[in-house]
């Protein structure tokens, strides 16, 4: 039997800087670079959807500023076992209300589960595939019963979102998407796609220590970097999301402005084709040569203006993070030696595919720099830039055909925050298995890695999971499987100190939680 300790509320309280009483005042106007497509948590499809959804909706657990998972709508939860099958036992927090006044009960989570497992509704139905049934014990106690263990379920914050069953059923799916109701600190007011979304503080928010300090929150959508910055400088917005990398230094020195820089949940790496017969990257020495050829630190410093965090397989604080694992050092001479040993004294020429759409800031330039380093070491890149859709099509393995990607590929796959590599490794390290969802973007095939990754999926125990992930990370690192990890992007927020106070609670890197923004009088 596995027990997970309940993190005391006291610990959470200690993190809260000031206990606000009663209603907040004033309006916070924030400028975001990207916006959610959908507001309905059972229908959302992309990570960016959290930006708006995360202000209104909540899950059973969430990430605190120290990047730890803490209980949120769950008062406590644990993984237990019965007849050889695992289940997650959840006790719901009492006194939680939806924006329309309905109390949160187990039935609401059951409703969410039923929606989220339906492939006609949810884009993430495969995440519920291992669940056998949802069992309500009472209004504040339920169990998620599994057919077989599913480690990713825990890695993904217990998956489920609190959705008001009664309201949803009354207004219907379309209407709910237009006027969503959750348990979160912000109540939905209105939205204009590609322009803005408006919220007001939820006076009955259950977590009294984390009630919004402002009365209203307006998020403006301004994708063009320069325009967003100008809007901040002219005072049209008080809170700037995603300060352009090149301006972070300038913002840090700016009088009357404060900044917060945090790492985001994405993981970038350079992948190789090892599937095709003639690929030079089938030789581990060539892969190691590539890893030694690139000065990732220099790239982070100049191309990313320092706004990136080097990682080796798993980011700091993630499941399987191993502080002893050191990245391959930049050593062009060693890279050449390795190439020579592998039988390429003159190096070789290879197509190098670069993502040019800024899915993360400056990825295109990072790719250009990496490919220039490879070329200098003898892996002569024929660079081909590709916009996102073309890049994704190339990256994705044909349903039954061999991979078309025949060279080097700049890739990314989020391990989320605090970070769990299970899903990412299943997708880009595990061998491609048609129809099973394994290795859907993989150009790697290694039996030992496959066995361990499959085992990781079945491991729900946090300790065992971390140990196994560490083992895989070491193996993956030594053999340079599934590419060379490079960096995790960082994001910087800036706000005007004369108008706002922002403590970054909850952890804002991925979800952009805004509830701790305080408007000064």
């Amino acid at each position, binding site marked *: 039997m596995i027990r997970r300790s309940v993190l005391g509320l006291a610990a959470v309280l200690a993190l809260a800087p000031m206990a606000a009483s009663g209603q907040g005042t004033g309006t916070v106007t924030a400028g975001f670079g990207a916006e959610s497509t959908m507001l309905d948590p059972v229908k959302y499809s992309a990570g960016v959807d959290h930006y708006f959804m995360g202000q209104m909706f909540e899950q059973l657990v969430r990430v605190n500023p120290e990047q730890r998972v803490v209980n949120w709508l769950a008062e406590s939860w644990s993984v237990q076992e019965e007849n050889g099958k695992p289940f997650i036992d959840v006790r719901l927090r009492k006194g939680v209300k939806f924006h329309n006044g309905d109390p949160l009960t187990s039935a609401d989570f059951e409703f969410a589960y039923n929606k989220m497992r339906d492939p006609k509704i949810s884009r993430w139905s495969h995440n519920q595939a291992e669940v056998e049934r949802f069992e309500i014990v009472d209004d504040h106690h339920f169990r998620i019963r599994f057919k077989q263990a599913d480690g990713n379920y825990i890695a993904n914050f217990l998956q489920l979102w609190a959705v008001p069953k009664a309201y949803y059923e009354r207004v219907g799916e379309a209407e709910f998407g237009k006027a969503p109701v959750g348990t979160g600190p912000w109540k939905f007011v209105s939205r204009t796609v590609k322009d803005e979304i408006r919220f007001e503080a939820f006076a009955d928010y259950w977590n009294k220590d984390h009630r919004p300090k402002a009365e209203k929150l307006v998020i403006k959508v301004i994708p063009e970097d320069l325009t967003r910055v100008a809007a901040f400088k002219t005072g049209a917005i008080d809170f700037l999301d995603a300060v352009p990398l090149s301006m972070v230094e300038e913002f840090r020195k700016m009088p009357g402005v404060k900044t917060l820089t945090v790492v985001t949940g994405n993981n970038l790496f350079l992948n190789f084709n090892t599937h095709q017969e003639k690929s030079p990257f089938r030789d581990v020495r060539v892969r190691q040569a590539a890893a030694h050829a690139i000065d990732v630190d220099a790239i982070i410093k100049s191309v990313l203006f320092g706004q990136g965090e080097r990682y080796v397989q798993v980011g700091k604080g993630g499941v399987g993070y191993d502080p002893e694992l050191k990245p391959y050092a930049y050593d062009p001479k060693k890279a050449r030696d390795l190439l020579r040993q592998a039988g390429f004294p003159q190096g070789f020429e290879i197509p190098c595919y670069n993502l*040019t759409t800024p899915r993360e800031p400056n990825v295109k330039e990072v790719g250009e720099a990496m490919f220039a380093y490879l070329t200098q070491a003898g892996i002569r890149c024929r660079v081909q830039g590709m916009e996102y859709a073309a890049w994704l099509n190339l990256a994705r393995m044909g349903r039954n055909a061999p991979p078309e990607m025949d060279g080097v590929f700049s890739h990314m796959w989020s391990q989320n925050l605090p970070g769990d590599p299970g899903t990412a490794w299943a997708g880009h390290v595990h061998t491609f298995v048609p129809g099973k969802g394994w290795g859907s973007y993989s150009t790697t095939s290694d039996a030992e890695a496959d066995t361990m990754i499959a085992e990781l999926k079945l491991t729900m125990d946090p300790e065992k999971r971390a140990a196994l992930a560490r083992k895989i990370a070491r193996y993956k690192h030594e053999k340079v499987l599934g590419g060379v990890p490079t960096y995790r992007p960082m994001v910087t927020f800036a706000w005007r100190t004369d108008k706002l106070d922002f403590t970054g609670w909850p952890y804002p890197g991925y979800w952009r939680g805004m509830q701790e923004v305080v408007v000064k009088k």
Partner: protein
Amino acid sequence: MVILALVVIAAAFGENVAPHDPNGLNLAAAFRPPVWEPKGEWAYLLGTDNLGRDILSRIIAGARVSLVSALYAIVFAGAIGGLIGMISGYFGGVVDAIIMRLVDIQMSIPALALALVIAAVFGADFDTVVIVIIVTYWTWYARIVRGEILSLKERDYVALAKVAGCGTATIFFRHLLPNIMNTLLVLATLQVGQVIIFEASLSFLGLGIQAPDVSWGLMLSDARNYITNAWWAITMPGIAIMITCLSANMIGDWLRDTFDPKRRQL
């Protein structure tokens, strides 16, 4: 004229003239300002970009891509559009009606939207850009040439040639073509600037020229990421576009006034 000549020379002999490899990466030399600034260096006359690449060398390399793509596109658009316009104007009737409807259809789609979709379909690269420009610009030639032919074919010498039993091809290339050459030339010159800007817009949006090729539009697209750090990186390629288009347009205006003083709206 002089400027255009310089640009053409730069495009032709770019590799020999350029002080640096346009794609030569040197992270240690990133963001060097132009030589006249306090921290400028003679090694990098117009400064360097975020990857330490020499901007002058990149402008020279970009001149080739920008001009060559423009020339290719204009020559083919002119040839295809011109021929279709001649056929349409000369034969008239159903052929004319069909061709003109096609032209109408094409012209009713915003050029940049069509270009974006095509580039997205075929994968953005040099060849696609050229094709996209041809697809966008042939209609202009077709329409204007058709108009010219309509009036030309009423002339006596065309009628005479027909009576004399000259083949259609002979009439086209011996009698009609020389008479529309001036128009084609003026139109082509006036389009050089437009096409360069069109290419720059496509590249700016990310569906034009892709690295490692260098184009002015691509340089601008890159430079906007660090616009406040290096004003020169966003200014210089823009100025290159500006003076090239300016000189092409001036030559075009001059040609128009010389060949065709009455038609002011070509």
